[in-house]
C-alpha cells in the first residue's frame, strides 16, 4: 500500500473542501430557482429561529410547537387542498445570519414567516421585512421595537412591559404595600419588566422600597438581598430567568426572608433551581402551563407527548400558537380566493387576515387590535407543594 505524503494529503483535502463549497453553493442556487413549483401543490411558510448556539433551546422549542401544528394541518388535508411546506432555517441567534436567512427565504418564495425567536435578530428581520411587506409572526419576541417596525409584524406572546404592569396590578390586588425589585441590569427582558413594574406599582400607590440591579452572570445575590430585606418589603419582584431566580429565592430564604416573590414568564422552569418549600406561595405570570385543566391545553400536551416524547413548555406552546395565527390567516386568504398565490396582494391579504382574525390558541385566544401586540389572557401561577398551579387568569 502506497503511503500518502503530507503534501498530497493537503492537496486532496483542499480539493475536497473546495468541491464541498462548490456543491454547497450549487445546492443553494438550485433551491432558490425552485420557487415557482408551488402552484396547486403547496404553500411555503418560512420558519426562522436559532437551532444551534446559545439560545438554541428557545428556537428548538418554538420549532417543535410550530412543526406539530403544521403536521396536524397537513394530515387533516392541508389548507384548501394545499399542503404546508416549511422552509426552516437556522440563524444561531445572530442578527447577521438572521438577515441572510430572511433574504434566502424571500428568494425561496415563502408567503409568510414564523420567526424570529430572540429580540435582536427579530428586530433586524422585522426591519428588513419592510421592503417586502412579508407577514411576520414571532412566537416569542417581546421587544417593543419588533412590532413597531411595521404593520406586517406580529407576535404571539405578551410583552415585557405588559408583564411588569400585570404583576404590579396583581401585587396591588393582593394588598401588598411595600415592594422591592431585583433584576439583571444587563438584560433587556429583565430591565423591561422591572421598569414597567415599578412605574405601574407607583401609580397604584404602592411603595417601591428599593430597586437592586445585578450584573449578568452573577451567582451571589446576598449583598443586594441584604439591602432589600433591610427595607422590609411585602413582596420582591424578581423578573429574571429561572436559573438566577432559583438562586435568588434560595439565598433570600437563607437570609430569613419569609415574604412572597413575584416573577415573570422567565420563571418557567424554576422548580429545578429552588426547593419546593422555598418557592411555596410565590407568583409569576405566564402564558402556558402544563398544569392547566383546560381541554385544549390537555389535548395539545397529549399530542406533543405523542410526537416528541417530552413535555411541552411555554415556548413550545407559543410556537404552536404562532403557527395557528399564520395558518388561520392563510386559510382565510385561500378561501377568499381573490389574491393569487405568491403575489404582493397575497402577502397583504395575509397581513390583513392576521390583523382582523382570531386564533384559538393553547395560550389563550389571540386577537390583534390595531397593533402587532396580541390581546390575550394571561395566567398567574403559584406554587403549592412543589407543583405549579393556576392561581388566576387575567383577561385581556
Amino acid at each position: 500500500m502506497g503511503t500518502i505524503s503530507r503534501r498530497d494529503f493537503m492537496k486532496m483535502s483542499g480539493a475536497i473542501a473546495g468541491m464541498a463549497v462548490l456543491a454547497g453553493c450549487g445546492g443553494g442556487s438550485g433551491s432558490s430557482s425552485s420557487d415557482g413549483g408551488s402552484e396547486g401543490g403547496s404553500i411555503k411558510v418560512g420558519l426562522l429561529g436559532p437551532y444551534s448556539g446559545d439560545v438554541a433551546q428557545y428556537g428548538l422549542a418554538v420549532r417543535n410547537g410550530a412543526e406539530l401544528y403544521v403536521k396536524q394541518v397537513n394530515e387533516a388535508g392541508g389548507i384548501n387542498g394545499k399542503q404546508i411546506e416549511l422552509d426552516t432555517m437556522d440563524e444561531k441567534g445572530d442578527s447577521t445570519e438572521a438577515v441572510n436567512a430572511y433574504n434566502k427565504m424571500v428568494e425561496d418564495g415563502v408567503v409568510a414567516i414564523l420567526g424570529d425567536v430572540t429580540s435582536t435578530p427579530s428586530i433586524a428581520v422585522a426591519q428588513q421585512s419592510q421592503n417586502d411587506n412579508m407577514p411576520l409572526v414571532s412566537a416569542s419576541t417581546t421587544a417593543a421595537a419588533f412590532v413597531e417596525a411595521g404593520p406586517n409584524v406580529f407576535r404571539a406572546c405578551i410583552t415585557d412591559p405588559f408583564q411588569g404592569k400585570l404583576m404590579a396590578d396583581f401585587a396591588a390586588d393582593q394588598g401588598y404595600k411595600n415592594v422591592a425589585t431585583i433584576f439583571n441590569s444587563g438584560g433587556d427582558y429583565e430591565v423591561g419588566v422591572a421598569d414597567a413594574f415599578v412605574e405601574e406599582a407607583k401609580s397604584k400607590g404602592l411603595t417601591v422600597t428599593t430597586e437592586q440591579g445585578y450584573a449578568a452572570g452573577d451567582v451571589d445575590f446576598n449583598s443586594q438581598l441584604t439591602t432589600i430585606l433591610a427595607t422590609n418589603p411585602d413582596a420582591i419582584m424578581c423578573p429574571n430567568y429561572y436559573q438566577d431566580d432559583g438562586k435568588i429565592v434560595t439565598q433570600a430564604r437563607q437570609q430569613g426572608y419569609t415574604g412572597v416573590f413575584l416573577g415573570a414568564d422567565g420563571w418557567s422552569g424554576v422548580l429545578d433551581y429552588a426547593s419546593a418549600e422555598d418557592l411555596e406561595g410565590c407568583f409569576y405570570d405566564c402564558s402556558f402551563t402544563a398544569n392547566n385543566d383546560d381541554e385544549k391545553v390537555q389535548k395539545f400536551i397529549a399530542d406533543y407527548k405523542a410526537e416528541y416524547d417530552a413535555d411541552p413548555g411555554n415556548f413550545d406552546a407559543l410556537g404552536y400558537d404562532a403557527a395557528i395565527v399564520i395558518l388561520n390567516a392563510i386559510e382565510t386568504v385561500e378561501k377568499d380566493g381573490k389574491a393569487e398565490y405568491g403575489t404582493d396582494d397575497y402577502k397583504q391579504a395575509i397581513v390583513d387576515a392576521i390583523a382582523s382574525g382570531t386564533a384559538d390558541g393553547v395560550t389563550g385566544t389571540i386577537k390583534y387590535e390595531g397593533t402587532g401586540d396580541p390581546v390575550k389572557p394571561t395566567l398567574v401561577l403559584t406554587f403549592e407543594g412543589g407543583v405549579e398551579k393556576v392561581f388566576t387568569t387575567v383577561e385581556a
Partner: protein
Amino acid sequence: MAKKTATAASPKVEKGYKSLSMPARYVINLVLVAVFIFVGEAMIDGGMISRYQTGVLEQVGIYIIMAVSLNIATGYLGQLPLGHAGFMSVGGYSCAIFIMRNMEAFGVTARDFATGAPQATLLFVVGLIFGGIMAAICGLIIGIPALRLKGDYLAIITLGFAEIIRVVMQNIDGAIGMDLTGGQKGLTGIPSYTNFVNTFVVVAISLFLIHTMMKSRHGRAILAIRDNEIAAEATGVNATYYKTLAFVVSAFFAGIGGGLYAGCIGVMMPAKFGFMKSVEILVMVVLGGMGSMLGSVISATVLTILPEALRAFADYRMLAYSIVLIVMMIFRPEGLLGSYDFSLSRIIEKAMNGQLFKKKAKAAKEAK
C-alpha cells in the same frame, strides 16, 4: 479585491529588465477594481446575483475590512489584541447614530440611500469617517497604556477594554440621561445605507490606504518593530509612537467596518460585540496568514461564505467550519498564505520579461 495589494517593491534595476512605471501599476489596479465593482453591480441589477447573495457579499466586504485592519496589529505589528470587536462596535454605533441624527440636517430620507442621492452619499461618507475617527480615538486611549505590555498581557488588557466598551454601550444612556445607544435593547431603525457598490468602494480604498501605509517609511518602521523591537529602537525607530500608530490605524479601519456593518444589518446590540466576535476576526487573520493582506482577504471571504454555503447541511455546518479550521492549523500552521503577498504588477513584469515560470522550473530542478 486583492488586486489592490500589488506591491511597490522596488524593481531591481537589472539591465534589460522591463518594468512597469508606478502610474501604470496604479492604473491597472484601478481599472480592475472598477471593472469588478461595475460587473458586480450590473449582475445585481440584472438579477444574476440575488438579494440574498448581495447581502452575503456585503458582509464579505465588511469582514475583509475587519480582517485586514486587525492584520495591521497582529500581522504587521506582531501583537495579539483581542478587542477588535470593541472598535467595530464603537465605529458602528458612532456612524449609525451620526447618520440617524443628521439625516434631517442633510435633508436625507431613508429612501435616498437606496437611490444614491448626492446628499445621502455625502452623509454616508462623513458618517463613516466619523465612525472611524471615534474608533481611532478609543484605539488611542486603549493603545497608549496597553502597548506597554506584550504578548499575553496585551491580549488580556485589550480583551478587558473591549468588555468595557461593551458595558459602556449598554449603560451610557442611563449615565448621561439621553437616548443614544438604546442600551441593552439595542439601537434599532438604522437606515440601510450600505450597499454592494459603496461597500466595495470602501473596501478598495481601505486596502489601498493600508497597503500604501505599509510600504511607506511608517510601515517599514512597524515591520522593523515586529521583527526585533530592540534592534529597531537602536536604529532610531520610535517604538512607542509607531506601535500606537499601527494600533490606532487598525482601530480606525475597524470603525469603518463597523459603520458598514450597522447599515447592513440595521440593528446594533452591545452583546453582539463580545469576545467571540473578536476571536472570529482573529481566526480570519490567523487562517489567512499573519502579515499577508491577500491571506486576510481570502480567509475573510471564505469564512463568511462558508457558513452560508453550507446552509443546506443545516446542523452539520458548524461542524464543517470547525473541521476546516482544525485541518488548516494542523497542516499549515502559518496560515493559508503565510506572509506571502500577491502582486499583480510583479507577475505582469515577469510575464513581460518571459520569466513567469522560470523560478518555479529552477526550483523544481533543484529539488530533483
